[in-house]
Protein backbone atom coordinates (compact mmCIF):
# COMPACT_ATOMS: atom_id res chain seq x y z
CA UNK A 1 0.00 0.00 0.00
CA UNK A 2 2.93 2.27 0.62
CA UNK A 3 3.85 1.97 -3.06
CA UNK A 4 0.31 2.69 -4.23
CA UNK A 5 0.15 5.79 -2.05
CA UNK A 6 3.33 7.14 -3.60
CA UNK A 7 1.54 7.72 -6.92
CA UNK A 8 0.02 10.74 -5.22
CA UNK A 9 3.49 12.10 -4.63
CA UNK A 10 4.62 12.48 -8.20
CA UNK A 11 4.14 15.13 -10.86
CA UNK A 12 4.80 12.42 -13.41
CA UNK A 13 1.44 10.88 -12.49
CA UNK A 14 -0.18 14.05 -13.82
CA UNK A 15 1.84 13.84 -17.02
CA UNK A 16 0.98 10.16 -17.36
CA UNK A 17 -2.68 10.99 -16.83
CA UNK A 18 -2.55 13.61 -19.60
CA UNK A 19 -0.72 11.19 -21.90
CA UNK A 20 -3.28 8.42 -21.42
CA UNK A 21 -6.14 10.89 -21.78
CA UNK A 22 -4.57 11.66 -25.16
CA UNK A 23 -4.09 7.98 -26.03
CA UNK A 24 -7.78 7.34 -25.25
CA UNK A 25 -8.75 10.19 -27.58
CA UNK A 26 -6.30 9.04 -30.25
CA UNK A 27 -7.66 5.47 -30.15
CA UNK A 28 -11.20 6.79 -30.49
CA UNK A 29 -10.36 8.96 -33.47
CA UNK A 30 -8.43 6.09 -35.10
CA UNK A 31 -11.47 3.81 -34.88
CA UNK A 32 -10.54 1.39 -32.08
CA UNK A 33 -12.97 0.18 -29.38
CA UNK A 34 -12.71 1.20 -25.73
CA UNK A 35 -12.06 -2.42 -24.67
CA UNK A 36 -9.22 -2.62 -27.19
CA UNK A 37 -7.75 0.61 -25.83
CA UNK A 38 -7.88 -0.58 -22.21
CA UNK A 39 -6.36 -3.95 -23.20
CA UNK A 40 -3.50 -2.11 -24.90
CA UNK A 41 -2.82 -0.15 -21.72
CA UNK A 42 -2.95 -3.21 -19.44
CA UNK A 43 -0.92 -5.56 -21.63
CA UNK A 44 1.45 -3.28 -23.53
CA UNK A 45 1.95 -0.69 -20.77
CA UNK A 46 4.28 1.51 -22.76
CA UNK A 47 2.93 4.80 -24.11
CA UNK A 48 5.14 5.04 -27.21
CA UNK A 49 4.41 1.44 -28.28
CA UNK A 50 0.68 2.02 -27.83
CA UNK A 51 0.78 5.19 -29.90
CA UNK A 52 2.77 3.41 -32.61
CA UNK A 53 0.25 0.56 -32.77
CA UNK A 54 -2.67 2.99 -32.89
CA UNK A 55 -1.20 5.38 -35.47
CA UNK A 56 0.34 2.72 -37.74
CA UNK A 57 -2.62 0.32 -37.76
CA UNK A 58 -4.99 3.29 -37.89
CA UNK A 59 -3.26 4.64 -41.01
CA UNK A 60 -3.25 1.31 -42.84
CA UNK A 61 0.17 -0.20 -42.11
CA UNK A 62 0.44 -4.00 -42.07
CA UNK A 63 0.68 -5.97 -38.83
CA UNK A 64 4.32 -6.76 -39.57
CA UNK A 65 5.22 -3.10 -40.15
CA UNK A 66 3.64 -2.11 -36.84
CA UNK A 67 5.23 -5.00 -34.99
CA UNK A 68 8.69 -3.97 -36.24
CA UNK A 69 8.18 -0.33 -35.26
CA UNK A 70 6.87 -1.38 -31.83
CA UNK A 71 9.70 -3.77 -31.14
CA UNK A 72 12.33 -1.18 -32.04
CA UNK A 73 10.68 1.39 -29.77
CA UNK A 74 10.57 -1.24 -27.01
CA UNK A 75 14.29 -2.05 -27.07
CA UNK A 76 14.72 0.78 -24.57
CA UNK A 77 12.76 -1.31 -22.04
CA UNK A 78 15.58 -3.84 -22.01
CA UNK A 79 18.19 -1.57 -20.39
CA UNK A 80 15.50 -0.21 -18.05
CA UNK A 81 14.60 -3.68 -16.78
CA UNK A 82 18.26 -4.62 -16.55
CA UNK A 83 19.04 -1.57 -14.43
CA UNK A 84 15.95 -1.70 -12.20
CA UNK A 85 15.97 -5.35 -11.12
CA UNK A 86 19.25 -5.28 -9.18
CA UNK A 87 17.72 -2.55 -6.99
CA UNK A 88 15.24 -5.02 -5.51
CA UNK A 89 16.91 -8.40 -5.78
CA UNK A 90 17.78 -10.18 -2.53
CA UNK A 91 19.37 -13.56 -1.81
CA UNK A 92 15.93 -15.21 -1.70
CA UNK A 93 14.49 -13.54 -4.81
CA UNK A 94 13.48 -15.95 -7.56
CA UNK A 95 13.14 -14.87 -11.13
CA UNK A 96 9.38 -15.46 -11.12
CA UNK A 97 9.00 -12.94 -8.28
CA UNK A 98 10.28 -10.29 -10.66
CA UNK A 99 8.02 -11.00 -13.67
CA UNK A 100 5.39 -8.45 -12.64
CA UNK A 101 8.08 -5.90 -11.84
CA UNK A 102 9.53 -6.42 -15.33
CA UNK A 103 6.10 -5.99 -16.89
CA UNK A 104 5.43 -2.80 -14.93
CA UNK A 105 8.78 -1.28 -15.88
CA UNK A 106 8.31 1.67 -18.20
CA UNK A 107 9.87 5.08 -18.28
CA UNK A 108 7.83 6.61 -15.43
CA UNK A 109 8.37 3.70 -13.07
CA UNK A 110 12.03 3.57 -14.01
CA UNK A 111 12.56 7.22 -13.11
CA UNK A 112 10.56 6.87 -9.89
CA UNK A 113 12.51 3.79 -8.79
CA UNK A 114 15.63 5.89 -8.46
CA UNK A 115 13.71 8.52 -6.51
CA UNK A 116 11.70 6.33 -4.11
CA UNK A 117 13.59 3.07 -3.63
CA UNK A 118 16.49 4.42 -1.56
CA UNK A 119 13.94 5.12 1.21
CA UNK A 120 12.39 1.64 0.98
CA UNK A 121 13.98 -1.32 2.81
CA UNK A 122 15.24 -3.86 0.29
CA UNK A 123 12.94 -6.70 1.31
CA UNK A 124 9.86 -4.50 0.81
CA UNK A 125 10.89 -3.14 -2.57
CA UNK A 126 9.16 -5.70 -4.80
CA UNK A 127 5.86 -5.13 -2.98
CA UNK A 128 6.41 -1.37 -3.17
CA UNK A 129 6.92 -1.51 -6.95
CA UNK A 130 3.86 -3.73 -7.40
CA UNK A 131 1.80 -1.13 -5.54
CA UNK A 132 3.27 1.84 -7.37
CA UNK A 133 3.13 0.18 -10.81
CA UNK A 134 -0.40 -1.20 -10.52
CA UNK A 135 -1.54 2.13 -9.09
CA UNK A 136 -0.14 3.90 -12.15
CA UNK A 137 -1.81 1.36 -14.48
CA UNK A 138 -5.15 2.01 -12.76
CA UNK A 139 -4.74 5.77 -13.10
CA UNK A 140 -4.02 5.30 -16.80
CA UNK A 141 -7.03 3.02 -17.38
CA UNK A 142 -9.26 5.71 -15.87
CA UNK A 143 -7.57 8.39 -18.00
CA UNK A 144 -8.05 6.23 -21.13
CA UNK A 145 -11.75 5.85 -20.44
CA UNK A 146 -12.21 9.57 -19.82
CA UNK A 147 -10.20 10.55 -22.91
CA UNK A 148 -12.03 8.04 -25.11
CA UNK A 149 -15.46 9.14 -23.91
CA UNK A 150 -14.64 12.84 -24.16
CA UNK A 151 -13.25 12.48 -27.69
CA UNK A 152 -16.58 10.97 -28.70
CA UNK A 153 -18.57 13.82 -27.20
CA UNK A 154 -16.41 16.93 -27.24
CA UNK A 155 -16.55 19.77 -29.73
CA UNK A 156 -13.90 19.39 -32.48
CA UNK A 157 -11.92 22.21 -30.87
CA UNK A 158 -11.51 20.49 -27.49
CA UNK A 159 -11.05 17.08 -29.14
CA UNK A 160 -8.12 18.57 -31.07
CA UNK A 161 -6.74 19.87 -27.77
CA UNK A 162 -6.96 16.40 -26.28
CA UNK A 163 -5.10 14.81 -29.20
CA UNK A 164 -2.38 17.45 -28.85
CA UNK A 165 -1.71 16.31 -25.26
CA UNK A 166 0.18 13.24 -26.48
CA UNK A 167 2.92 14.93 -28.54
CA UNK A 168 3.35 17.74 -25.99
CA UNK A 169 3.60 15.44 -22.96
CA UNK A 170 6.01 13.10 -24.73
CA UNK A 171 8.17 15.86 -26.15
CA UNK A 172 8.73 17.54 -22.79
CA UNK A 173 9.12 14.38 -20.74
CA UNK A 174 11.67 13.08 -23.26
CA UNK A 175 13.48 16.43 -23.27
CA UNK A 176 13.59 16.32 -19.48
CA UNK A 177 15.05 12.82 -19.47
CA UNK A 178 17.92 13.75 -21.79
CA UNK A 179 21.03 13.08 -19.74
CA UNK A 180 23.74 13.26 -22.35
CA UNK A 181 24.46 15.15 -25.54
CA UNK A 182 23.65 12.00 -27.53
CA UNK A 183 20.10 12.05 -26.13
CA UNK A 184 19.58 15.72 -27.06
CA UNK A 185 20.86 15.20 -30.61
CA UNK A 186 18.75 12.06 -31.01
CA UNK A 187 15.65 13.98 -29.95
CA UNK A 188 16.26 16.97 -32.23
CA UNK A 189 17.34 14.96 -35.27
CA UNK A 190 14.50 12.50 -34.73
CA UNK A 191 12.00 15.37 -34.88
CA UNK A 192 13.62 16.93 -37.95
CA UNK A 193 14.27 13.76 -39.95
CA UNK A 194 10.80 12.28 -39.65
CA UNK A 195 9.17 14.71 -42.15
CA UNK A 196 11.96 13.82 -44.62
CA UNK A 197 11.60 10.07 -44.06
CA UNK A 198 7.82 10.43 -44.44
CA UNK A 199 8.41 11.47 -48.06
CA UNK A 200 9.61 7.91 -48.72
CA UNK A 201 6.19 6.60 -47.73
CA UNK A 202 7.75 3.25 -46.91
CA UNK A 203 5.45 2.18 -44.07
CA UNK A 204 8.48 2.11 -41.77
CA UNK A 205 9.29 5.83 -42.01
CA UNK A 206 9.49 6.05 -38.21
CA UNK A 207 12.10 3.29 -38.13
CA UNK A 208 14.19 4.85 -40.88
CA UNK A 209 14.30 8.31 -39.31
CA UNK A 210 14.82 6.79 -35.85
CA UNK A 211 17.74 4.56 -36.77
CA UNK A 212 19.44 7.26 -38.87
CA UNK A 213 18.98 10.02 -36.26
CA UNK A 214 19.92 7.74 -33.36
CA UNK A 215 23.03 6.46 -35.10
CA UNK A 216 24.20 9.99 -35.97
CA UNK A 217 23.66 10.99 -32.32
CA UNK A 218 25.66 7.97 -31.20
CA UNK A 219 28.40 8.91 -33.70
CA UNK A 220 28.63 12.39 -32.19
CA UNK A 221 28.81 10.82 -28.72
CA UNK A 222 31.69 8.57 -29.86
CA UNK A 223 33.52 11.43 -31.58
CA UNK A 224 33.30 13.56 -28.45
CA UNK A 225 34.41 10.70 -26.21
CA UNK A 226 37.41 10.33 -28.54
CA UNK A 227 38.27 14.03 -28.27
CA UNK A 228 38.05 13.94 -24.49
CA UNK A 229 40.33 10.92 -24.37
CA UNK A 230 42.92 12.61 -26.63
CA UNK A 231 42.88 15.77 -24.47
CA UNK A 232 43.30 13.75 -21.31
Amino acid at each position, binding site marked *: MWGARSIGAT*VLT*LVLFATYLGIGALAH*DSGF*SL*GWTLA*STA*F*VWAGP*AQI*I*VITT*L*GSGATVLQS*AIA*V*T*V*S*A*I*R*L*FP*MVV*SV*LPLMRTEQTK*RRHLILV*AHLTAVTLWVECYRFLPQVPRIRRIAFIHGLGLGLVSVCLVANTIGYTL*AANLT*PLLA*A*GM*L*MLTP*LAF*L*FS*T*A*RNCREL*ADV*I*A*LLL*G*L*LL*FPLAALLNSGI*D*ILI*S*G*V*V*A*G*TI*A*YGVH*RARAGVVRVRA
Partner: protein
Amino acid sequence: MSSFIGDWHALAILFVAGVIPNQIWRMLGLWFGGGIDENSELLVWVRAVATAILAGIIAQIVVQPPGALASVPDWLRYGAVAAGFAAFMLARKSIFAGVIVGEVVMIAGKYWLG
Protein backbone atom coordinates in the same frame (compact mmCIF):
# COMPACT_ATOMS: atom_id res chain seq x y z
CA MET B 1 -20.73 -5.56 -24.62
CA SER B 2 -19.76 -6.35 -28.18
CA SER B 3 -19.25 -2.67 -28.96
CA PHE B 4 -17.03 -2.35 -25.88
CA ILE B 5 -14.63 -4.99 -27.21
CA GLY B 6 -15.25 -4.33 -30.90
CA ASP B 7 -14.19 -7.28 -33.00
CA TRP B 8 -11.95 -10.03 -31.66
CA HIS B 9 -9.81 -9.89 -34.75
CA ALA B 10 -8.63 -6.38 -33.77
CA LEU B 11 -7.75 -7.68 -30.32
CA ALA B 12 -5.70 -10.54 -31.82
CA ILE B 13 -3.85 -7.99 -33.97
CA LEU B 14 -3.13 -5.94 -30.85
CA PHE B 15 -1.33 -8.93 -29.34
CA VAL B 16 0.68 -9.73 -32.46
CA ALA B 17 1.55 -6.15 -33.41
CA GLY B 18 1.71 -4.54 -29.98
CA VAL B 19 1.90 -6.79 -26.94
CA ILE B 20 4.40 -9.47 -28.01
CA PRO B 21 6.94 -7.23 -29.80
CA ASN B 22 6.90 -4.92 -26.77
CA GLN B 23 6.92 -7.51 -23.98
CA ILE B 24 9.76 -9.54 -25.46
CA TRP B 25 12.34 -6.93 -24.43
CA ARG B 26 11.20 -6.85 -20.83
CA MET B 27 11.39 -10.63 -20.60
CA LEU B 28 14.82 -10.64 -22.24
CA GLY B 29 15.90 -8.06 -19.67
CA LEU B 30 14.59 -10.33 -16.91
CA TRP B 31 16.38 -13.41 -18.27
CA PHE B 32 19.69 -12.04 -19.50
CA GLY B 33 19.94 -8.80 -17.57
CA GLY B 34 22.50 -9.88 -15.03
CA GLY B 35 25.54 -9.76 -17.27
CA ILE B 36 25.04 -6.48 -19.09
CA ASP B 37 26.68 -3.20 -18.17
CA GLU B 38 24.12 -0.42 -18.03
CA ASN B 39 26.61 2.07 -19.45
CA SER B 40 27.91 -0.10 -22.30
CA GLU B 41 28.33 1.47 -25.74
CA LEU B 42 25.64 -0.77 -27.22
CA LEU B 43 23.08 0.52 -24.75
CA VAL B 44 24.06 4.14 -25.45
CA TRP B 45 23.26 3.49 -29.13
CA VAL B 46 20.01 1.68 -28.29
CA ARG B 47 18.93 4.57 -26.10
CA ALA B 48 19.75 7.10 -28.83
CA VAL B 49 17.74 5.14 -31.43
CA ALA B 50 14.82 4.70 -29.04
CA THR B 51 14.81 8.44 -28.27
CA ALA B 52 14.89 9.27 -32.00
CA ILE B 53 12.00 6.88 -32.69
CA LEU B 54 9.98 8.53 -29.98
CA ALA B 55 10.83 11.93 -31.50
CA GLY B 56 9.65 10.62 -34.87
CA ILE B 57 6.30 9.62 -33.36
CA ILE B 58 5.88 13.06 -31.81
CA ALA B 59 6.67 14.63 -35.20
CA GLN B 60 4.25 12.27 -36.95
CA ILE B 61 1.30 13.30 -34.77
CA VAL B 62 2.08 16.98 -35.29
CA VAL B 63 2.94 16.77 -39.02
CA GLN B 64 0.34 14.17 -40.10
CA PRO B 65 -2.33 14.75 -37.44
CA PRO B 66 -5.11 12.20 -36.81
CA GLY B 67 -8.84 12.91 -36.49
CA ALA B 68 -9.92 16.19 -34.99
CA LEU B 69 -6.37 17.55 -34.81
CA ALA B 70 -6.29 17.73 -38.62
CA SER B 71 -8.77 20.63 -38.48
CA VAL B 72 -6.09 22.84 -36.88
CA PRO B 73 -3.88 24.61 -39.48
CA ASP B 74 -0.25 23.42 -39.78
CA TRP B 75 1.31 26.69 -38.66
CA LEU B 76 -0.82 26.78 -35.53
CA ARG B 77 0.17 23.24 -34.49
CA TYR B 78 3.86 24.03 -35.02
CA GLY B 79 3.46 27.38 -33.25
CA ALA B 80 1.79 25.71 -30.26
CA VAL B 81 4.65 23.20 -29.93
CA ALA B 82 7.21 26.04 -30.19
CA ALA B 83 5.38 28.13 -27.56
CA GLY B 84 5.11 25.10 -25.28
CA PHE B 85 8.81 24.43 -25.67
CA ALA B 86 9.68 28.04 -24.84
CA ALA B 87 7.56 27.79 -21.67
CA PHE B 88 9.18 24.44 -20.82
CA MET B 89 12.65 26.00 -21.01
CA LEU B 90 11.69 29.23 -19.20
CA ALA B 91 10.03 27.31 -16.37
CA ARG B 92 13.24 25.35 -15.79
CA LYS B 93 12.12 22.24 -17.66
CA SER B 94 8.63 22.01 -16.24
CA ILE B 95 6.67 19.46 -18.31
CA PHE B 96 3.47 20.85 -16.85
CA ALA B 97 4.20 24.44 -17.96
CA GLY B 98 5.10 23.27 -21.48
CA VAL B 99 1.94 21.21 -21.93
CA ILE B 100 -0.36 23.93 -20.57
CA VAL B 101 1.12 26.74 -22.69
CA GLY B 102 1.14 24.57 -25.84
CA GLU B 103 -2.50 23.63 -25.30
CA VAL B 104 -3.63 27.19 -24.51
CA VAL B 105 -1.90 28.62 -27.59
CA MET B 106 -3.42 26.00 -29.88
CA ILE B 107 -6.94 26.12 -28.47
CA ALA B 108 -7.01 29.93 -28.24
CA GLY B 109 -5.61 30.23 -31.77
CA LYS B 110 -8.16 27.83 -33.22
CA TYR B 111 -10.98 29.49 -31.31
CA TRP B 112 -9.92 32.90 -32.61
CA LEU B 113 -9.73 31.58 -36.19
CA GLY B 114 -13.21 30.15 -35.75
